[in-house]
């Protein structure tokens, strides 16, 4: 599978601060790739560097086969970009905004634009400045999906949106997924989980991991071990068993490399006699919190 976005050793430094360090990432074509991380982790810097809004300090990125530093009008005809902080031409009405952008895109699809306007319930005659935050995001999204982009890059599109609008935006994205590769950064893990196919976790400017959503869900388990008799946590403690908690006869931790019976064997080897081992699947949010709090690289 080809990569829609590929970065290698990408770094960005702002004066004395390393915003991005040695970021190597592949976003497969056709995927919905979610880049998650805490505030200030480097998500927006990654996206802006990839989109040629910021110049990388070192390393390089290619977007749809073009060096990110060479991205120009021809490439942007196939790329959509929506950001929560994007400054829009507020004086334009929604309808004029779409009409204005149309000639820029050879693949602009009027029917698709109309469909998106209806789907997002956008008032065509209202100025962008008079739209709510959610409406603005939807207008930006409609203007970016109407030309069937090969790549859609979204920087925190759900920030501050109410659940209803969030669902509408996600529906719009799901409709386009497949023909369009979606690269999205977000805090909204519950929403991301519902449609992302791939996930990357970034912390302090470094990519901690990037993999398929299914693989991530499969390898993270919240494990509860009921011991035959109370005992302290054994040492040495495996570094991929995160956030251990012990009560007299129960030990809980997050296994970041769950392998079914393999993991059970490891537990038995370490603890000796155990009464019960239970492994619970984890939601993305729980995985994210575990990783953020443990500071582990897995």
């Amino acid at each position, binding site marked *: 599978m080809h990569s829609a976005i590929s970065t290698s050793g990408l770094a960005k430094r702002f004066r004395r601060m390393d915003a991005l360090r040695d970021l190597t990432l592949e976003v497969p074509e056709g995927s919905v790739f979610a880049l998650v991380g805490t505030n200030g982790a480097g998500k927006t810097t990654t996206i802006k560097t990839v989109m040629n809004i910021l110049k990388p300090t070192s390393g390089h990125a290619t977007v749809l086969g073009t060096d990110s530093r060479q991205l120009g009008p021809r490439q942007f005809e196939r790329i959509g970009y929506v950001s929560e902080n994007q400054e829009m*031409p507020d004086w334009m009405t929604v309808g004029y905004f779409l009409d204005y952008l149309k000639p820029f895109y050879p693949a602009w699809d009027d029917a698709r634009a109309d469909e998106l306007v209806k789907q997002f319930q956008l008032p065509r005659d209202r100025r962008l400045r008079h739209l709510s935050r959610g409406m603005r995001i939807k207008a930006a999204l409609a203007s970016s999906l109407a030309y069937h982009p090969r790549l859609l890059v979204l920087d925190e599109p759900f920030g501050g949106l109410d659940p209803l609008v969030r669902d509408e935006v996600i529906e719009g994205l799901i409709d386009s997924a497949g023909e369009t590769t979606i690269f999205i950064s977000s805090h909204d893990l519950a929403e991301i989980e519902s449609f992302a196919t791939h996930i990357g976790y970034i912390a302090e400017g470094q990519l901690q991991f990037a993999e398929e959503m299914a693989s991530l869900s499969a390898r993270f388990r919240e494990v509860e071990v009921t011991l035959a008799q109370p005992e302290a946590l054994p040492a040495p403690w495996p570094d991929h068993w995160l956030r251990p908690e012990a009560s007299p006869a129960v030990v809980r931790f997050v296994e970041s490399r769950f392998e079914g019976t393999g993991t059970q064997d490891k537990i038995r080897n370490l603890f000796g006699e155990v009464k019960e081992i239970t492994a619970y699947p984890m939601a993305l949010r729980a995985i994210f919190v575990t990783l953020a709090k443990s500071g582990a690289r897995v």
Partner: protein
Amino acid sequence: MKQAIHIFKKDLRYLWREIFIVLLLAFMFSYSAKLSRIELNGPVGFVFLLASCWMIARLIQAEMLVGDNQFWITRPYSWSSLFGARIAFIFTFVQIPILLMQLAILIGASFPLWSNVPGLLWTQLLFWICMSFPLAALASATSGLVPLVLTILVVPVAGLAVELYFPFVGLELGTALGPLEWIKDTVAYFGAAVIAGVDLYFQYRKRATIFSRVFLGGATALVWAAYICLPWSIAFGVQSRLGREGDDLSSLRLRLAEHLPQFEGHRIYSPNLTRVPLRLSVDGLPSGDDVRGDAIDLQILFFGGRVAALKRVGLDKVTIQGNNFDVIVEPNRPLLPVEYDAPVRIRGSIYLTVFGNTRRRSIPMDKKPVNVIDSLQCFLAGLPAKQYLCRAPFRWPAGIVSAAFSENNVRPLGRVVSYSPFPASLSLNPVEVRAPFGTPSLGTDVTISIKEPLAHIRRDFEFTGIQIANSDAR
């Protein structure tokens, strides 16, 4: 091209209010010019320029080049189309209105059009490089209208600070070059064009805001320094090269008056007063020609090695006694008796312009403007008509213009404005109006004469053995 037109149409829609105001002011300015034959530089022209600048700033910042959150930077905008659309807009709604305004004023004043085409085109160029381009460059490097206005205010504030803290610069700044001011202006215009051009290119092509700001600030400071510090000797050198001295001026001689002139109430030697008046006479001028003293650079070398210097632009001519120019040299401390009594050496250079090839035309005094010579028009103005005025398109003639109301009542019409070879100066008003000095008694006819500048010359001189004590002041 297609994209540029598309962006242009969008800007038209975005800035329709500003366009309306600018066009209305342009119409008002032209109309006020039609009503008033005398003074066209009213507030309307100023407001028009202000409104135009505001529109240019809003236009450039409609697609802001500073920052990384603008919607358009990740859209398929071609920089050349965006830049082209901007240029087309400014051309259509700022430059063309200026052209039409000036055209309307010239037509209204019955000036011949064909001969004024160079003036119209030159004014267009000047407004591009002195207003539209620099403002567009500043707007492209600032992140909003407030920072833009503050940046514009930095220039006069910096100038004031320099004047206050570096008075020597202030003195240079105050040294106007008179008719040669155009040379300094040309340096500024050329600098503004280059700075704005480079800045706009980099901002539109690369969005290199930091480079753009550093370049704008640095290059502007350099050009400003070149403007205020331009040695006037260089300017006069340039002017002398432009106006070559003809063979018939080889007989022109310079001499120091035998008796130094007396200046009423001033004694040359006294314990508290140090003033040395000198009179330079120009002889050998062809009959009918006139001479103007543009500048002098002079040194008096006293006994004992002390030097007193004078640099002055614009020399007063003592018209009663031929072509004499009086100057006063002020040593930095009172003369010692030995310096006063011993002979001194005076050396230096004088820059002169010779005028000749007089053309005259007698015309009736009329309220209706009468074409005289070289597009010059003269007429009676005021209610009741009691003032005689002359006007010229774009630039007052570079020669000496005078009006003879009777044989003994010849009045010059202002000083020579500029020796510039260019057809116009930077002004919205394409008509320059002048009145004769004094209050002439008005008859029925007047003879207007123009003496053309024939040559700009420099004469170096050295006079030795001059006795300051010979002065009539003793």
